[in-house]
């Protein structure tokens, strides 16, 4: 199979929401990403796949500037949101993160807060809120995360009293309540059972109508099921980035084929 340079942009229907331009990242002296180029389309689901330690978490964490919170973390290159450089001097990472929300690997609801307060946490942390509007936001966010029917009678219960899958959807609701434009999901189902996983996957299909979604996943079937575009990362290099269908049915790179057919990883 002929090697085609990965810088050839895949055909796109929608304009790029996030642009990744020659991005490299380090932890101390250890380089974890090398010259990554990607265009992430608006209201599309982009999956990032690859074996453990390939840098996919670092890549997604550099999109909302969470990478820089780690000790010794460094980044070079350019990441744009709607064309504007998010690492520009005058960009406050705090404001950026309100536009680019994130859901983590392990559900992490705030343990001291009820279901309702967890949903409102992002708003309460950052500004004051009157009660009538709060009720409306809670219901909307929980509907958005497909959790409302299950928890509407126990909004005052502690967030930790929910099941793992419900907790993860609570974390999604918490992100939605801040009204972001982009939702980053870093292996959101890796701590969940298959039933909870499929609920989150259904949810991703619904959320796509409103949000731009980037999802890191370990699970290739999941990437195939939920995403429009897929990026395959290997040891910090972007090996291939194309439409999900194409990547899984006719990969252009031998390494991609080896990975998706289970020859390694």
């Amino acid at each position, binding site marked *: 199979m002929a090697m085609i340079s990965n810088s050839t942009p895949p055909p796109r229907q929608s304009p790029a929401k996030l642009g990744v331009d020659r991005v490299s990242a380090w932890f101390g002296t250890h380089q974890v990403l090398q010259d990554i180029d990607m265009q992430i389309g608006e209201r599309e689901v982009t999956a990032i796949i690859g074996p453990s330690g390939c840098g996919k978490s670092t890549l997604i964490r550099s999109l909302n500037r969470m990478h820089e*919170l780690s000790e010794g973390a460094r980044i070079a290159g350019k990441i744009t949101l709607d064309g504007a450089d998010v690492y520009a001097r005058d960009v406050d990472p705090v404001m950026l*993160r309100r536009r680019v929300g994130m859901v*983590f690997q*392990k559900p992490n609801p705030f*343990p*001291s807060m009820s279901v309702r307060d967890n949903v409102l946490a992002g708003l309460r*942390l950052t500004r004051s809120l009157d009660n009538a509007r709060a009720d409306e936001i809670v219901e909307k966010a929980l509907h958005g995360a497909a959790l409302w029917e299950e928890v509407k009678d126990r909004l005052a219960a*502690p967030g930790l009293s929910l099941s793992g899958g419900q907790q993860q959807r609570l*974390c999604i609701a918490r992100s939605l309540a801040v009204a972001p434009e982009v939702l980053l999901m870093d292996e959101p189902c890796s701590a969940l059972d298959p039933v909870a996983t499929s609920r989150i996957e259904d949810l991703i299909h619904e959320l796509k109508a409103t949000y731009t979604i980037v999802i890191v996943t370990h699970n290739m079937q999941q990437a195939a099921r939920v995403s429009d575009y897929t990026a395959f990362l290997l040891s910090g290099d972007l090996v291939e980035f194309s439409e999900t269908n194409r990547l899984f049915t006719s990969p252009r790179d031998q390494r991609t084929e080896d990975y998706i057919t289970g020859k390694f990883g």
Partner: protein
Amino acid sequence: MSDHDTRSRMPERAFFALTIAAVAVPLLVLLFLLVIVTRSGLTRLGWDFVTSYPSRHADHAGILPGLVGSLWLMGLTALIALPLGVGAAIHLEEYGKQSRLSRLIEINIANLAGVPSIVYGLLGLGLFVRTLHMGRSVLAGACTLALLVLPMVVMVSREALRTVPMSLREAAYALGATRWQTIRQVVLPQAYPGILTGAILALARAIGETAPLVVVGALTYITFVPDGVDAPFTALPIQIFNWVSRPQRAFVVNAAAGIVVLLATMLVLNGAAIYLRNRLQKKRA
């Protein structure tokens, strides 16, 4: 086979017995102290003893100034040491980068916790009483005790902050919270129970301290209670020390009664703090 089984269970049983002994020995010693002290102080224990001023006559003497003085000291020490100690811990843990300097500071704080209390007393005498002209006041005493317990408050608070999982801080940052919002609304509420435990231990140590207060100039015989932070003062352990060193047998009874009052005060303070901690924990869970 059964022979082998019994032999392998021997260390198990021995260890179990050892841990029981480890619990029983200190408990018995404490019980012994309580029984002896209560029995010898019993004749003087009563409401009169708690509400009276010291006197030349042992059977009229009371512990009121010492009790009130100790409560003043506790309150002021807490007010000074807790904000400073928790503040320093937050800075070192949440803002400080892992560097050689921060490790150096950490080692130094641990060392400071081991400095003999008399040294803190001398520091307090030089700094608060003389240089800052606080005089032999309850404020000078509280400042000295605050210095004394500060390293402990810092260490325990850092430990409590460290137990808050990184994932919760990340959750807050990802929602667009600033560092301060994250600390105040996510990290501190999680760390409060641990910090409070440290505060209890620190204040329990402060209430029992005698040496630094003697150096700073707590009086042994006063017939009034402090009416402000600049008033002269005495404290429970000082009063007890004074009575024990009297030649008359009757004053030794007073000392025993004084010890019971001191222990009871400590119990009430600790009980209140533990109650508060459990309520915080319940809210958390």
